């Protein structure tokens, strides 16, 4: 019930804000309601620690047709990610305190709704629960993105992104079907080893890691608060599956790891050179998600969740910090520590999996991401807090601090990746390389930030790589339309009868 309670807090608060927006659009206490709901839910997730592990099982009727329950669970894997999502939701609502309070209640409602769906996805403990949670998030994201898209090109990109997400869902569904063939109720643990790889591929596909593409290039209109929430919660919900499956090496594993390595290096490089943190956000997500996928492919689900939590918490703190505040700027350096994988950091467990040659790529990608983070964090925000009431400044800062504190806390308590010494032999070189890259980024033109652009940029070049696939598809559709025209034309009846007779003669031969 605790899982449901937290989600209900999110959903009911979102509903209250929505109703308030309709019946009393100028209500000055809307933010207070949002903040209260987000705080209660955050504390609720923190309270899970006292009861873990526990489950929420829902079932469909009739039982003969739907024997598998819809299962959610809070355990020492899922809690860390659920906690990160709840902290991010709280931070987004708190960070909104410095904006005009009367106009934003719908985006707060949206953030709370996403928070609730994100918690459901991160707590999903079987493929059926995951499918439903992902579908809900994808539909919510589709509506939000279509509503905010301004350019024709963005709208078209959104439908392509939706299709890619839907294929990710389809991969999970296929893993489920393949396991159903073996009989019995399907849990993540009972999925056949061959089918487990589909889950990893699904996560990689949905986040643009495998094959490398930019699923989020169209989110320029969704910038800081709600945009951050949307991007990071969807990423966390997607990556949550990686913590549920223990992958064994297969023949194709090196290929998948190579693809993830390419995505990690590309994401890290582009993140380091991004003109600012918001323009670099898609690359942050790709880079961190790729590292998470690599950890899962190396048989380290705890490491995969550690990267996912860092993606949400470190990224969230940076993307929400838009104001000039020297203290906050230096406080953000906590994120550098979190990403370092040094002992007792949140990511200390990321190097615990099988070591192979690809670890070098992961190490370089990690260094690029840390260096990029430091560069963006130390540049500081552009907006000023002058003129804001003191309580607004305090609440805004508290929102960022919640995310920073959560990073430190998860390094020590609450889940399987806490209080780990990690692998110093890899963590140390990664950290040193990151510092060198950070220094180099200030001195060498090679590392100079790219021009900020959302069309015709590097991202589109990457997506253009897939144009030949589009051409192939175009050819296929033309052939299919020709067949359809043939069957619908004057001679269609004869063709149909011919097919039917062929079919019957084959059948009659068998009989």
């Amino acid at each position, binding site marked *: 019930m605790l899982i449901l309670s937290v989600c209900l807090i999110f959903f009911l608060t979102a509903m209250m804000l929505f109703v308030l927006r309709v019946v009393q659009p100028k209500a000055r206490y809307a933010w207070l309601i949002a903040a209260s709901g987000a705080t209660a839910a955050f504390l609720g997730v923190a309270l899970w620690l006292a009861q873990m592990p526990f489950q929420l099982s829902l079932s469909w009727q009739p039982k003969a*047709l739907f024997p598998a329950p819809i299962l959610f669970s809070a355990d020492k894997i899922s809690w860390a990610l659920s906690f990160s999502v709840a902290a991010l939701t709280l931070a987004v609502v708190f960070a909104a305190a410095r904006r005009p309070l009367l106009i934003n209640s719908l985006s707060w409602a949206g953030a709370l709704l996403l928070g609730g769906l994100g918690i459901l996805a991160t707590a999903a403990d079987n493929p059926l629960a995951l499918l439903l949670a992902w*579908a809900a998030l994808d539909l919510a994201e589709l509506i939000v993105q279509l509503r905010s898209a301004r350019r024709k090109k963005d*709208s078209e990109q959104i*439908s392509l992104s*939706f299709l890619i997400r*839907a294929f990710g869902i389809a991969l999970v569904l296929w893993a489920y*079907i393949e396991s159903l063939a073996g009989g019995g109720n399907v849990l993540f643990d009972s999925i056949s080893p061959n089918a487990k790889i589909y889950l990893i591929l699904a996560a990689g596909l949905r986040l643009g890691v495998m094959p490398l593409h930019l699923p989020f290039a169209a989110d320029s209109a969704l910038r800081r608060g709600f945009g951050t929430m949307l991007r990071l919660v969807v990423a966390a919900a997607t990556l949550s599956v990686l913590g549920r499956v223990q992958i064994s090496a297969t023949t194709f594993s090196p290929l998948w790891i190579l693809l993830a390595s390419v995505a990690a290096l590309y994401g890290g490089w582009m993140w380091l050179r991004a003109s600012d943190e918001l323009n670099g956000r898609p690359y942050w997500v790709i880079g961190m998600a790729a590292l998470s996928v690599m950890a899962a492919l190396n048989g380290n689900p705890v490491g995969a969740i550690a990267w996912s939590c860092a993606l949400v918490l470190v990224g969230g703190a940076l993307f929400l910090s838009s104001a000039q505040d020297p203290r906050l700027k230096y406080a953000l350096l906590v994120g550098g520590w979190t990403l370092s994988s040094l002992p007792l950091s949140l990511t200390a467990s990321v190097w615990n999996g099988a070591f192979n040659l690809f670890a070098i790529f992961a190490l370089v990608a990690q260094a690029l991401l840390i260096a990029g983070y430091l560069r963006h964090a130390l540049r500081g925000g552009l907006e000023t807090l002058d003129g804001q009431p003191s309580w607004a400044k305090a609440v805004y800062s508290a929102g960022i601090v919640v995310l920073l504190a959560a990073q430190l806390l998860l390094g020590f308590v609450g889940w399987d990746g806490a209080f780990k010494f990690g692998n110093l032999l890899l963590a140390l070189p990664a950290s040193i390389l990151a510092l060198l890259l950070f220094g180099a980024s200030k001195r060498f033109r090679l590392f100079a930030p790219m021009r900020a652009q959302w069309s015709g940029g590097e991202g589109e070049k990457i997506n253009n790589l897939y144009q030949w696939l589009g051409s192939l598809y175009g050819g296929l559709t033309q052939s299919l*339309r020709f067949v359809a025209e043939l069957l619908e034309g004057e001679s269609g009846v004869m063709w149909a009868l011919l097919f039917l007779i062929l079919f019957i003669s084959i*059948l009659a031969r068998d009989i």
Partner: protein
Amino acid sequence: MSAPILWIAVPFIAGVLILFFFREEYVAYLGGAAATALALIAFVIPIDAALLLGGISIKIAPSVEVFGRSFSLPAADAPLLTMIYGSAALWFFGAKVSRSAHRFVALGLIICALLTASIAVEPFLYAALLLEIAAMLTIPLLAPLYQKPSRGVIRFLVYQTLAMPFILFSGWLLAGAEASPADVNAAIQSGLLALMGFAFLFSVFPLYSWIPQIMEETAPYAAGFLLWALPTFTAIFALGFFERYIWLLNTPQIAAAILFSGVLMTASGGLFAAAQRHLGRIFGYAVVAEVGLILVALGLHSSESANLVFLIVLPRSLELSVYALALSVVKGAAYRLSFDDVKGLIRKYPIAVGALIVAHLSLAGFPLLAGFPSRLALWRELSAQSLTAAFWVFFGMAGLIVAAARALSALVAADDDAKWQINESWIQSLMLGLGVLGIFILGMFPQMLAPFLANLPQLFERLAQ
């Protein structure tokens, strides 16, 4: 009062009265109310059992004889009647919004009555005749008066008519086969003829070419009603047929042929849908794929076959009515439904476009929507029998998802900075909104269908064994 009079004669007469005596503006409400009342009666009042209301005792007799033929609707048929008239009510209320109410409601009621008669008639082979008459009555729905029917409509009629002799002839042979069970050849011949008849009735590959054609050439709402009604009643007729001749389904080759036809229909429907550039044709192929699923459920060697068929059929009326209604609204705005004509329409008709996409995704089995639970249950049974067949069904559904994304891509391609407007009327918005809500509710809580499914084993006892 007898059940056949109540659920066959009354709607038939109501349809005739509406056709000749009522004005356009009231007919949708009238037809919808009549169908709702019939559904409620079927749900509340038991057939063939006395019901005391105050001092009055009501009993609905289960059968009636007409010209030596018997029409029988026993108590076990009550959930079916509720489903049929409840679904018809959805279509009739929606007709008001689609601006084609008068002929639609009148003929719709008559068609529903005839199709209900096809379930009730004994000897049951007369059902083929009633299905044929119903098919002929849909022609005035699809083709405007004083206008030559389009090629798709003609082809539909040709195929439906071809089905009838096969079914009748197979029935005659099957009666003989039952009398002399040792004659294997007669049994096989009769089984093959029955399969041919059902191939035409279900419009299996490649006999479904008329479906995308009529969706392109005629009013989408009327065509949608046809595509809801005929496959639904054909499925019920087929269940009754196989219940009677259960040995046909127990013949592995025949069961495999049905399964194969279904898989081929679903896979090809999805594939063709993904290649279309016309919203109506995409709808048509989505229906083809879904009818394929019904055949797959029929061909499964499982005690859950009948339950699966109804699990697919029940949400289907909601999905198709919402889809067809949304298409009508879009067609009203764009005149034609090709991608070039509907570009950017989401900014002007967001509710209709949203409903269209949700209904399509539901047909494609997208999680959280009404179509998902039935597909999931089907995959569960199917994958245990053949993972290859499960893959091709999965492939067909993936094709429908691609079609949805392509349609969405066209519908959202508005000019830069085009303003958002809501041009749907309040009643269109209400009906579409309620329909979408229903699709989500059925997708999240399929147990709402459990009361219908619970009583079905009584109807098809031998299939459920």
